[in-house]
């Protein structure tokens, strides 16, 4: 029986490995043929829409769900054969902050520490340490049900860090957070990685995966749509998009040709709007001049970061709108 509080990784084992991992719920494959290899200390981003299979993958890796096919190892331990060792090696922060609303933040962390079989004094000390680190010291003795969404998230993350696990699974850690909280959380995650943690996080935001991950796996309806480093994916997808809205459909074609000099990929027209990937450093003023020179009736010009939809559009060639409807 697992008695130790010292959490260790099997020597030299990668953080997370999966082979042909799949999960079927009734007739639906939520996840199929997932092969991963996340070296110890690396950060993997699982990128995808709702229902892409991200949460299913996290649930299998954290032993909450059993795989239908394939195998997975966390810190060198097989999730199906040695779930207890896997649980002792992982920290999980779920999509829905899984903390007890009827207890104080401190009591929550102490309880989790006790369930990791830390001695009482050690559990207390660790709870104080984490409350401090996540900026929750002042709220430590308040009931968690009075917490804001961001505070609950931070407490949930603190709970996942109690036993200093070598592998961390974070399911959409920043969904629903304001930009400031998001930045703070990113900083914290980078610190944890610098301390040697292996991190697997899911996100719907390309930007988040780009900021944090060494490798990205794009999931689409349970299957891997693309894999690569953020820079590889960005090279394929392009960084920024220009959205030009014209006054009349007749102006679509002239607009596309006028934008050609800035284009970094094929354009996509939808109604009165043209979306086109543009090269880094493109200036809006030059774009406006070019459109004006071609006598295009422009009602709006808008520059934005590439989104997950753009990733799918480029990587899978499928139309994001019809994909969402499906």
């Amino acid at each position, binding site marked *: *029986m697992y*008695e130790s509080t010292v959490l260790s990784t099997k020597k030299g084992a990668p953080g997370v490995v999966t082979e042909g991992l799949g999960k079927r719920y009734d007739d639906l494959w939520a996840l199929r043929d997932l092969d991963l290899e996340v070296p110890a200390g690396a950060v993997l981003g699982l990128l995808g829409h709702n229902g892409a299979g991200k949460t299913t993958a996290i649930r299998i890796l954290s032993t*909450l769900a059993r795989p239908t096919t394939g195998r997975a190892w966390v810190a060198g331990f097989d999730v199906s054969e040695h779930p207890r060792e896997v*649980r002792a090696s992982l920290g*999980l922060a779920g999509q829905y902050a899984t903390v007890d*609303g*009827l207890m104080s933040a401190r009591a929550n962390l102490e*309880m989790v520490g*006790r369930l990791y079989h830390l001695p009482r004094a050690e559990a207390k000390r660790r709870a104080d340490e984490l409350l401090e680190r996540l900026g929750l010291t002042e709220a430590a003795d308040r009931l968690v049900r009075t917490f804001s969404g961001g505070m609950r998230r931070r407490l949930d993350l603190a709970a996942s860090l109690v036993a200093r696990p070598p592998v961390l699974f974070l399911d959409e850690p920043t969904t629903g957070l304001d930009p400031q909280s998001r930045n703070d959380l990113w900083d914290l995650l980078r610190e944890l990685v610098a301390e040697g943690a292996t991190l697997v996080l899911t996100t719907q935001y390309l930007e988040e995966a780009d900021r944090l991950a060494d490798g990205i796996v794009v999931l689409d309806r349970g299957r891997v749509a693309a894999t690569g480093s953020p820079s590889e994916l960005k090279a394929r997808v392009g960084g920024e998009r220009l959205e030009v809205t014209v006054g009349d459909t007749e102006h679509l074609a002239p607009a596309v040709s006028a934008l050609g000099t800035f284009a970094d990929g094929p354009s996509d027209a939808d109604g009165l709007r043209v979306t086109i990937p543009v090269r880094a450093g493109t200036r809006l003023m030059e774009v406006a001049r070019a459109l004006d020179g071609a006598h295009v009736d422009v009602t709006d010009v808008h520059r934005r970061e590439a989104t997950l939809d753009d990733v799918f559009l480029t990587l899978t060639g499928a139309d994001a709108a019809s994909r969402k409807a499906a």
Partner: protein
Amino acid sequence: MITYVSDTLVFARRSLAHVRQIPEKLIDVTLQPLMFVLLFAYVFGGVIAIPDGSYREYLIGGILVQTIAFGIMGPANSMATDLTEGIVDRFRSLPTSPFAFLSGFMLAELAAATLAVAVMTVSGLIVGWRIESSLGSAVAGFGLLMLFAFAMLWLGTLLGLTARSPDAVMGIGFLVVFPLTFLSNAFVPAGGLPDGLQAIAEWNPISVMVAAVRTLFGNPTALPPGAAWPLAHPVPMALVWCGVILAIAVPAALWRFRARTTG
């Protein structure tokens, strides 16, 4: 094994922390039984005649069983709440047995049931109820009550694991337990009921349980002449009923628990 016991205590302490935060959680095992004892003793005490004793001596056995039967609501509600809030996922990602969670939960709920029995015993003694049997018989009476509480706890846990939400639990619980306890001999002798209802009351397992408790405490049972066979042999039949409930509820609850907590 040591970690299993200590984990169980951690989970039991969590339930106690909930009670500290929401003391109202204890109402159904403290004030509610007290209220029932006082209401029935003073409101109906003068109207309902018991052939072989006083109404207050008759009443307490019924209130004890009724309160314990309503005790399915507490655990059902707590379990349904834990499942909807996803906290069980947190526990399952920790290196602890999921069954430690279940046993800690049961331990705390059993403590609540014990408190309820104590409150009713003391308030019963205050309104004039007495245990008229031998010490051994009285101990057996309390033992039977705790066995019944244990069976109801498992039934409540099963309900909490089956219902879709905590609100649904309250609805279902009330709809089943309320008629079951009132269509019995808990508050009035079954012999005084109209024919159809009398048959229901005689075969109602709650009646058997109530009659068994009254028998063991040496209180009047006021059984109608020619009562249904189970009611005429209440103590062994009460044990059988508890056994049947446990034999169904325990495996079903464990199966639901596994199903609800493994994907």
